[in-house]
């Protein structure tokens, strides 16, 4: 049946085009990769770039503080993190149904076909900003 051929072909095509890749990083820097706006880095306004629908900002190695905003229809949450950044490490900031709305994971490229996230870190506080 033609729809089965289409389904298999689409699956193969997606598999060939969607491969995991590691972004090269400057020496002594890690990277924050976030689905949500990165507002502040160590108390200063952050200037993230947007690539493939995600916010990215380089972050120096060592103990760092940063703020990420989780937007909702009724208001926003500014979640503040403390993180000991390792050079060359990518950190993914995601939403999870946890006691706090955002969480930071370490991202590890396993093979060209899949990556793994580990060592979740919750924010030490999330401030509610009503609309």
């Amino acid at each position, binding site marked *: 049946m033609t729809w089965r051929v289409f389904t298999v072909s689409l699956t193969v095509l997606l598999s060939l085009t969607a491969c995991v890749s590691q972004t090269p990083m400057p020496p002594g820097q890690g990277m924050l990769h976030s689905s*949500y706006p990165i507002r502040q880095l160590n108390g200063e306004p952050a200037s993230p770039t*947007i690539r493939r629908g995600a*916010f990215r900002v380089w972050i120096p190695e060592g103990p760092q503080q940063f703020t990420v905003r989780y937007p909702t229809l009724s208001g926003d949450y500014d979640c503040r993190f403390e993180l000991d950044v390792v050079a060359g490490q990518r950190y993914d900031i995601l939403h999870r149904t946890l006691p706090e709305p955002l969480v930071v994971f370490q991202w590890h490229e396993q093979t060209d*076909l899949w990556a793994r996230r580990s060592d979740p870190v919750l924010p030490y506080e999330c401030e509610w900003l009503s609309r």
Partner: protein
Amino acid sequence: MRQILSLPYILLCALAANNAVAQTPELPPVLGITLADIRQATIAFVNGNTIPGVQGADLHIQTDDRQGTHLRSSLGFGADVTLPNSTVGLFWGGALISGTLEESHWFTDDSVPIARLDVDREISGLRAAAGVFAPWNRWSRFRLYYSAVYSELNTQSGLLMYESLPQEVINDLDAIFFTSDVTSLSSSLTAQLEWFHYWGEAKWEVDAKYSSIYTDTRSETSQHLDTWAWSDVAQAELSVTVPSRFRPFSQALQVQMYTQYSDFLGLPKAALGYTYYFETGLIAEWEVNLKPLDLFGLRMVGLKAGYIAGDDVTGYSVGLVLK
């Protein structure tokens, strides 16, 4: 005589062949079913396997005049995609669906058995979904999405007549076996509300879903199955998830207890043999946090076991759960 809804395609095609007319004639009144009943049952079976939210299960229907086994399975995914600088995001998903049905219907006239109809069905389909989502606050999220389902249904029916039927009817209706093929295209709009909250370490979740479905069927072998219908389905689930101290394969293990209610609103019971059911069970899930192909995240892998009970339907659901 008790009216029984069933799918005797064989009768219709046999009558059509004998009469050599374009229109499919009505069934003999003694059986108590009509072409409209057959169309309704066909669409109900398509929707019962393909609509969003319907998961794999092994169902058993048992009444005084009906007995059947309905197996359905699906392999699918759904993913929320956040957009930069936007509260509203995108949702997309898809699924491969399959199902089988084996059932027997007994026709009676004043408690005297007239005939038995055996029906075997197979359905396979492909569903794609796209829509939007938005969090209301940190505890709740609303999702609205459109789904399109293409499916192909094959039915084989056999009618066994008993001697008590009037002779003139028996002359027309002998034991006949017939195969019909139907293609179906369904469009549905689903509104979904998710809410969760923590009390201590336990996470309580509510997931409510309402789908309105338009189904259009076509058949080259059975003209009376060129039809369409609107249907509505409501589902609600309550679950509680608690962490365990076990870490198999060095990954955190959680246990979720859930109760889910599914209601095929406005559907006559005879179309599927049931109109609602509850499913209660357990899911043991491991947190894996993988991202295959950089397309979507795989948060949990779990094993599920659930028991199903409804109006004249029982069953179980066992399988792998990917979140």
